[in-house]
């Protein structure tokens, strides 16, 4: 009954009887459907990005990337990620510590609130800050009187980015720390460590791969966010344009080659993120098991 060919591909599987697997033609059809679907919807768009980026040759590509507006967009994107990701890391660790290490009333509700930004449209994530800090906004007049600029400037972009990337680190760490329990920390404390020492020398090493995983996803979204940032940025060239916004401007000016050149950098970031994420899952799959599946 056992199919020798399938067995050679899958040495670890128990022998598969015909009754618990599909017939060969059915299998072939499912495989073809999968490859066709993923090829058309995932692979082709990715190939298009790099194909269009180099459509006008390598010199046009490097010229597009060394353009001053592009360079300031790259700087701004890096700056925004460098501010928002660490803040969300501090929040993620803090929230995970409170939620995973303690039992308290309203814990489930708090966990739900942390996930809230995922169910809000990115445009609305930007809009809420316009309603607070815009000229007609709640604090608009007060901010103007005190000469504080938030909207259409870097602080607004950072706030919107923090909003959309808010849950990433926390939602990786909470299930991981819950699964690991409190035993290690209690042992450290009973041996005379103080709270900070227990955190630095026990908890942090225990969750470092999960933390890195969360940072990776948080960073990818922070650098790539479009909708929320678009609403609060004001699209001032060379000043408040992040890389995704710059892609849009170039594309709308019918400068497709330059738009795809900048887009290729972002696609490269996405590919690096996927590779690192896969490596983490391969090497530390067991440790991350609690957080997989989303």
């Amino acid at each position: 009954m056992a199919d020798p060919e399938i067995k050679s591909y899958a040495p670890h599987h128990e022998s598969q009887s015909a009754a618990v697997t599909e017939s060969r033609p059915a299998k072939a059809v499912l495989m073809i459907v999968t490859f066709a679907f993923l090829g058309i919807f995932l692979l082709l768009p990715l190939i298009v990005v790099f194909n269009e980026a180099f459509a006008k040759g390598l010199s046009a590509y490097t010229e597009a990337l060394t353009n001053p507006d592009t360079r300031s967009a790259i700087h701004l994107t890096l700056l925004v990620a460098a501010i928002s990701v660490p803040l969300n890391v501090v929040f993620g660790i803090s929230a995970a510590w409170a939620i995973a290490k303690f039992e308290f009333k309203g814990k489930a509700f708090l966990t739900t609130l942390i996930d809230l930004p995922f169910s809000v449209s990115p445009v609305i994530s930007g809009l809420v800050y316009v309603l607070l800090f815009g000229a007609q906004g709640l604090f608009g007049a007060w901010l103007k009187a005190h000469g504080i600029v938030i909207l259409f400037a870097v602080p607004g972009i950072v706030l919107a980015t923090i909003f959309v990337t808010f849950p990433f680190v926390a939602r990786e760490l909470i299930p991981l720390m819950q699964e690991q329990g409190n035993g290690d920390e209690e042992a450290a404390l009973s041996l005379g460590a103080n709270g900070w020492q227990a955190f630095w020398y026990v908890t942090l090493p225990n969750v470092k791969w999960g933390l890195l995983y969360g940072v990776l996803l948080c960073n990818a979204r922070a650098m790539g966010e479009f909708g929320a940032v678009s609403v609060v940025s004001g699209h001032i060239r060379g000043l408040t344009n992040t890389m995704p916004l710059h892609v849009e401007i170039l594309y709308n000016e019918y400068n497709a080659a330059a738009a795809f050149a900048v887009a290729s950098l972002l696609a490269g970031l996405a590919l690096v993120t996927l590779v690192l994420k896969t490596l983490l899952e391969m090497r530390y799959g067991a440790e991350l098991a609690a957080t997989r599946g989303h």
Partner: protein
Amino acid sequence: MTTAPAKAGWRFRQPSVIPGFGLTLGFSLAYLTLIILIPLSGLIWRSAALGWADFWAIATDRRTVNALEISFGTAFIAASVNVVFGTIVAWVLVRYNFPGRRIVDAMVDLPFALPTAVAGIALTTLYAPNGWLGSLLAPLGIKVAYTPLGIVIALIFIGLPFVVRTVQPIMEEIDKEVEEVAATLGANRFQTIARVLLPGLAPAIVTGFALAFARGVGEYGSVIFIAGNLPYKSEIAPLLIVIRLEEYNYAAATAIAAIMLALSFVMLLVINLVQTWSRKRYG
């Protein structure tokens, strides 16, 4: 770990030897309140301040209604397509071994990692009348770019990983003995899948649908390039919010946003009920 007696009365938290509860919970709540809760309640406060008549006028404006219909309709179609193909993709990834399986598996997360604007211009180029796929479809009379069909395509791209990543772990946990039992009892493979496996996967499939749908309704970046953005025809609700904002029409932008939030909330609630029901029914 905790030494709390069984009947200690109401207490906010169980005692623990671990320090730092006040600090971490306090910081987390303060940060959550400042970044998420105050801004979101600002939105609710603003739309409440509108007054019922104004709110109703905006909500029943034909352009608003059409934009909401397009957003929710295309997201529904795209999530349905993703349920079918995402479940097949997950099945192939879980059950079949083939060279490069790990790479294909990693590729599924591409829509999570690729910035939406990049996906938007890539899909538009692909499906434009002179694009690789658009030029193949044009002779058949199928126009994708700059039509609602283009919106569906973008939302299929965005939503795919939500379905695959929700269904996949549940499939991995299926006990093969169940299938063997079904086969021994005389079920053919199709019956086993349809009557034994799919009901067990139903809650995960519904969850995947809900996540893909919710994401699709709010999606902006990947859609606006391919949609054509014709008012009443291919203009999505998030874009209409942006347009109203650019007109300094804060009232309309706020009202549309509040409607979107309320509709998504109701929908997630319904899907939650369906999920509870199917979990009860199929365990």
